[in-house]
Structure formats: C-alpha cells, structure tokens
C-alpha cells in the first residue's frame, strides 16, 4: 500500500509500523480497571473504514492517524496524531 506521510510524502506502507485502532482512547493512568480493560483489549475490528494509527518508523518517525477501508485498502485523511505539529509539516 502507499501512505502519504504529511512530512515525507507518499511512501510504501513497509516504511511504517502499524499502530492499531486510533478510536481507542487510553484513559488516565489511575482510571478504573474496566476502563483500562476495555482500552487494552476490546476492538471494534470493522470490515470497512477504520480510523487507525501508523508510525513512519522508517522515515521521520512521527505518528500518523488516517482512515483506511480494511476491505479495499483505500486510504484517506492522513494527518499527524499530534495536532500541534499539523502546521509544521507543510
């Protein structure tokens, strides 16, 4: 697959490391066991569009969030996870 890193441009997916489901929000470190159990273990695992994280580990090493269809692999809306650097990538 080809992923367009906002900083480096379009690259093969083998340059990236998969970061899993981005809709999972990890709670505060001292949150309840149920909240942590859900965040660590439960996944929606959709057959369709999934909002997910990737790290450009072979390139600039920033973490990205994007939407990918898990059936057709079409990818859209690639942006840095850390919103505060969205301006710095242009």
């Amino acid at each position, binding site marked *: 697959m080809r992923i367009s890193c906002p900083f480096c441009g379009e690259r093969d997916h083998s340059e990236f490391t*998969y970061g*899993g489901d981005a809709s999972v929000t990890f709670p505060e470190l001292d949150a309840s066991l149920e909240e942590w*159990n859900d965040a660590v273990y439960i996944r929606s695992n959709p057959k369709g569009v999934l909002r997910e994280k990737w790290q450009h580990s072979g390139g600039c090493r920033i973490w990205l969030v994007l939407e990918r269809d898990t059936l057709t692999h079409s990818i859209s809306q690639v942006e840095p996870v850390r919103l505060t650097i969205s301006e710095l990538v242009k």
Partner: protein
Amino acid sequence: MTNYSAFELLRHAVSGRPWSRAWRNPEPKSQYDVVIVGGGGHGLATAYYLAKEFGIRNVAVLEKSHIGSGNAGRNTTIILANYLLAGSTEFYGHSQKLWDTLSSELNFNVMFSPRGQILLLNSSEDVDGAVRRSNIMLRHGIEARLLDRAAMQKLVPHLDYRPTARFPIWGGLLQPSGGTARHDAVVWGYARAASQLGVDIIQNCEVTGFLRDGGRITGVETTRGRVLSKKTAMAVAGHTSQLGEMAGLRLPIESHLLQAFVSEPLKPLLDHVIDFVSHGQFYISQSDKGGMVFGGDLDMYNSYAQRGNLPAVRDVASLAVSLMPCLGRVRLVRHWGGINDMTMDGSPIISKTPLEGLYLSGGWGYSGFKATPASGWCFSHLIARGENDRLSAPFSLDRFARGATIDEAGTGPIPRLH
C-alpha cells in the same frame, strides 16, 4: 451415502454407477436445536461431534458461500502440537491424537501425513527454549526429539549450512507426529460424516442478524429466511467481530491479513514441515501433488481483503532462500490471503458469551487448521452441556479481565505480534 473404500471404487468403476452426493443439500428448516454459523472446518467438526458424541442431530450449519470457502481452504495445512503454555499444550496435544484416526473416523481420506515437523534453532537461546518446550511436550505424551546441527544436516541436507548463512542452524526440535493434511478433504470429510448423521448443511445462506428475547439469543435472520434455534454457535473465524457485532458482543479480536504461497508441482524435494520463528516467521512443506506450500508473518495491519501486498511476499521469499537456497529457482505459481482472527493474547476463544444461548469459537490466529478436530470436540461439549470441558476451560472470553491470558509469544496485547 455409500461407504468409501477401494472395493467400492472397484464396484463403481466396473458398474459405471455414478457416486451420490457427498453431503445432502437440503432447504433450511425453520427450527433447529442447534444452529452453527460458519461452514468451515471448525463449524462442520462441531456439528459432527454434536451428532456423534452427544446424539444431538437436529443441527444446521449455515454457510454464506460454499463450505470451506474461508480460512479452511486458505491455510498452509500444517499440523503440530509443540505449544508451551498450560492450556495450549493439552489442547493441541489432544487435537494431534484426533488427527491420527480422523480418516477412518470420517471414512474420508484427509491425507493426514505425520511426516515430522522441525522447529529450526538458530542460537543458543533457541536451544535453551527448545529444551524446555520438548520437555513439556514429552511430559504430555507428545513425541519430541532434539536434533543437533549434524543430525539436522543428515535429515534435511538442503538447508543452508554454509558459513555465510545468515541464520546459522544450531539444531532443530523435531515433533515426529507433526505434519500436514489436505485441508479441503477435512472440510468435505466432516461435512459428509455430519450429513450422514442428520446434520443439515445449508450453503449460500448468510446470517444477517440475531433473534433475541431479552438477554437470550433465539435464532438468526438469514438470506434464506428466519431460523429459530435453542442454541446458536459462532464459528466464523475472520468474521467473528462482524457476527459478534450483530449480537452486541465486544471482543478482543483483530482480523489481520495472512498470505500463503504455493509453487509449481515438483518431484519430492522436502519430506518434513520446516518452521522458522527466530526472526519473523517462515514455514514450508511440500503438498502430495508436489507444490511447495509456504507462508510467513501477518501483513501487520487489519484487513479483510484476502489479498496481500508485495513487501510481505518479498520478506517470505527472502527467508525461504536464506534458509533453503535451492528454492531460488523454484517458481511461485499462486499467492493468496486469509483473514487471520487474532486475539489479544494469540490464543483462541471457546466460550459462553454474556448472551444466553450464544456460544463463541474464534480467534484462531495461525493455529486454526491444526486445531480443527479438538475445536469441534470441545465446542460441541460446551454447546451440548453448557459448560467448557477441561481442555477448553482456559480459553474463556473472560480470561482477559481476570488476567489469565495465555500468551505463547509473550508479546502482549498487540494481535499482529503473536
């Protein structure tokens, strides 16, 4: 249904009488005692043992396409029982035993070939790990032999023993009873035997929803009408999350893409199953028709596409040639992908669910094919008795919340790393 044997083959050849259908193809009834969703190896095996071991025959197996169209027909057909942790060792050890008599049990030659499976050892740490693993196997009645480099060179002379080899071979852990089987034959064998015992196998019948009565599941909606059932069982592997979602289940599973490869048909080249897990993963064996069947790691991202990408193909080819240099000139004829339903600890789930009357078998990861007989055995017990048997008790859905995860790879709650 006529019995299969050389004699019957002779009789049909001489008389020219056509063979009857291997499994009946009935219209779905409106009501069954048990409905099993998923016509792969696991679903059909469960139906067979329900009928054979527990006498429950008013059973339907609903398959959205044709039987064996999912992972059952897409794997690399390897059978082994060299698992390390409590729960896995016993379960896969039992499956190994069931394989040995499966052809005669089903009266269908599944071509189970215990030719010996070898786990390659490429460092002193690997040897230490193999000592522990083989001791656990022997203490569970599973045959194991630790081979040193010289013994390996005699047994499989065409691995790479040259000084320039990238993955030096220190030895191998041989499981003599490990091997391969013809995956389609397992599906057809269980289907035929189950059908003979009265199980209805309904193809081209996709489940589109569950029927509920409060907290209880009472049947399913399908593309061929509504089917009521006292007990409903899920055995849909890669699509476990989709089916689970229809019932409101929240599951610790991600579906990943696992590619598999087959070469052109060759005269006998490799007599064993070779597994390499030291860096990434690679496994290879030769089918009876002569094709080299091999595979490697997942494609490392969620996918239902059932078709892989080039980098993973190149990595598997690189491991193949680094380990067995003569494979360089052998040509790949076909590569495809399955949907690998991997749980958060890499071990399967055979369990009741929070919904009454709904039972789940899923999350089989790389181990689905080799687990087929024992999965059917244990899941049928759970459905018939409403309780897990000793073998499948560790694989409950609530093990994650209890902290009783079974993590063979030791890589934690990241499915793609198992």
